[in-house]
């Protein structure tokens, strides 16, 4: 009726870059011309607690929250956070965990969030140029090369599986 809505839930622990990952995803979707909403609960995130961010995009997005059982993709940055969040996935939804990328190919540990976005990007209708622009504007300039490398490592991991 109003076009397909894509629901992504990003989960991890405080300090892992969950919110940054969802910022980049939301920006890439906005650049592709979609309506976008992103929702998260902040406040305790710097104290090492669970952090979850919902990103929804499509022609029109209403509620900013992904209802449980309706996530197309669940991106989890920390393996212990799979169980508390897997109820968000729909039956044929895709779980993307740190296993999706070859850790040896990452420039550093902190880029895991961007690498998982790279893995996710293979499955989304968002042009690569928009992703790269989002990465370029979402971080200080000196981090772009490392993030670009991590993003490509994430993409490569998914392409091999296909």
């Amino acid at each position, binding site marked *: 009726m109003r076009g397909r809505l894509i629901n992504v839930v990003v*989960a991890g622990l405080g300090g892992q870059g969950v919110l940054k990952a969802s910022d980049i995803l939301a920006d890439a979707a906005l650049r592709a011309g979609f309506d976008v909403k992103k929702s998260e609960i902040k406040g305790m995130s710097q104290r090492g607690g669970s952090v979850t961010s919902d990103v929804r995009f499509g022609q029109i997005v*209403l509620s900013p*929250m992904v*209802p449980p059982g309706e996530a197309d993709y669940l991106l989890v940055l920390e393996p212990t956070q799979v169980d508390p969040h897997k109820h968000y996935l729909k039956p044929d939804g895709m779980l993307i965990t740190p296993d999706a990328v070859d850790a040896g190919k990452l420039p550093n540990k902190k880029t895991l969030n961007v690498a998982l976005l790279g893995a996710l990007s293979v499955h989304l209708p968002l042009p690569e140029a928009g992703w790269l622009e989002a990465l370029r504007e979402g971080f200080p300039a000196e981090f772009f090369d490392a993030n670009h490398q991590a993003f490509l490592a994430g993409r490569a991991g998914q392409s091999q599986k296909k």
Partner: protein
Amino acid sequence: MPAPKRQLLSGDEAIALAARDAGVALGTGYPGTPSTEILERFSELGGLGQWSPNEKVALEVAIGAAFAGARAMATMKHVGLNVAADPLFTVAYTGVSGGLVVISADDPGMASSQNEQDNRRYAVAASVPMLEPSDSQEAYDFLLAAFEISERWKLPVVLRATTRVCHSYTVVQPRGPGGTAKAPKFERDIRARVMIPANARPAHKRLRQKLAEIGEWNETCSLNRVVPGDKKLGIITSGISFMHAREAAPEASVLKLGFTHPLPMKKIAAFVKSVKRCLVIEEGDPYLVEAIRAAGIKVEGKAEMYRFGELSVPRVRRILNNDITPELAQLAGKPPQLCDACQYRLVFEALRQRDCIVAGDIGCYTLGVLKPFEAMDSCVCMGASLGVGLGLRHVLPLEQARRVVSIIGDSTFVHSGISGLVEMVYNPPPSGHVLIILDNGTTAMTGHQEHPGTGRKLNHQPTNKLVLEDLARSLGVKRVHVVEPRVGSNEFERTLDECLASNELCVIIARRPCILIVKRLRELEQSECEKKEGPCAAG
């Protein structure tokens, strides 16, 4: 000038941008989730944004600016409006010359709060107009509308948002800066501004008269709109619930209320008449449903179980289906905890070992209640550690009273602990008392904001510094100790033992910067030093 770009903004950021575009001359507030980012962003955008010691002072400063004819806003979380309620209720009587908007950011579900009070009740109690945005675009548009309404009726207006509106990012098309702000000018109006009973009596009548006019105007106001749909099901809703309801029942007719006090009852009655079944979908208290029913209009509400927590699409589906079966408990994620290297760990360990009775307060350190410390016995509201600790000391048997301590953070102490300290000096318990101020040099829980004790303003520029130990001594506290809690030193424990045994009034300031701000602090100090003296060594 080209039209401003579409942006993905949080509700808070959208409010800040609207404030900038509306020419707000002064924004005041006290940090509190989910409202904090409004003033921070407003300041980044070039606006004059200031943290006040607490919300009451913040609103009073904003009132002064609005009395001078400027546009002013005060931002706070829902419980902050409790603190600011005193000026709010009477500024409704005095009215304002410039626009005054009070932003109340409520936290249904308590993502980071001690209660989930519904501040729509305040608009009713204080007789002030209230707007409720549903997303960031509305947060932007409604702030502009709030100033227009405030200036038209010369009344303060409450903009009530909730966590999901404040912290969700949605697309905003800004209008850009508009019009030129009026130049502030003092105009004497003693009868309107000085609320002695002789002036307040007519002011109260004036206020109710204005409210009646606003209610009539609201009947045709574009902030309330009907989304046409199937006439079998009608939904009346406001705020974020509108989004959930539209998604849960895309076929329904919806009356979306944006201007929710005073309510447009004729419009509501006409909508209810136009549909077969009419349901009110609202988060929190049954505010709309009670008001609509009191006007003699028959509508369905939600079951009591949905008063608690946030609404969501699945919960709205359940309300629509009259489903009151128990909801599935979700697996809890990892709860927050005191940082591994936090200096307060040592403090709470010491309190636990001594089996202290701990009157606690609000901040990161409230996490001292969790395992392994479990070293907090009460947490009521900002500043309550002082009063509650003193009350315990006054009535408990002596051997228990001697173990009572009050514990409070630096920002919370400045917010509302100072009057508690005055109480301690004025009405000392027979066993004395021990107050521990955890001074980490920041408002840590809400994301490291400055406060009067840090000596820096909201934008981190230096200003006068409130020295906590000097303040305590000046109030008459004889035993004031400043200690640095750190691993490998037993100074804190030793001082605590001496104070607990002393039967005197004691203040222990446990001072060490929050580990999360150390780097920023070093950079700030270096740049301040360089401004004064040329190149300075880092660290």
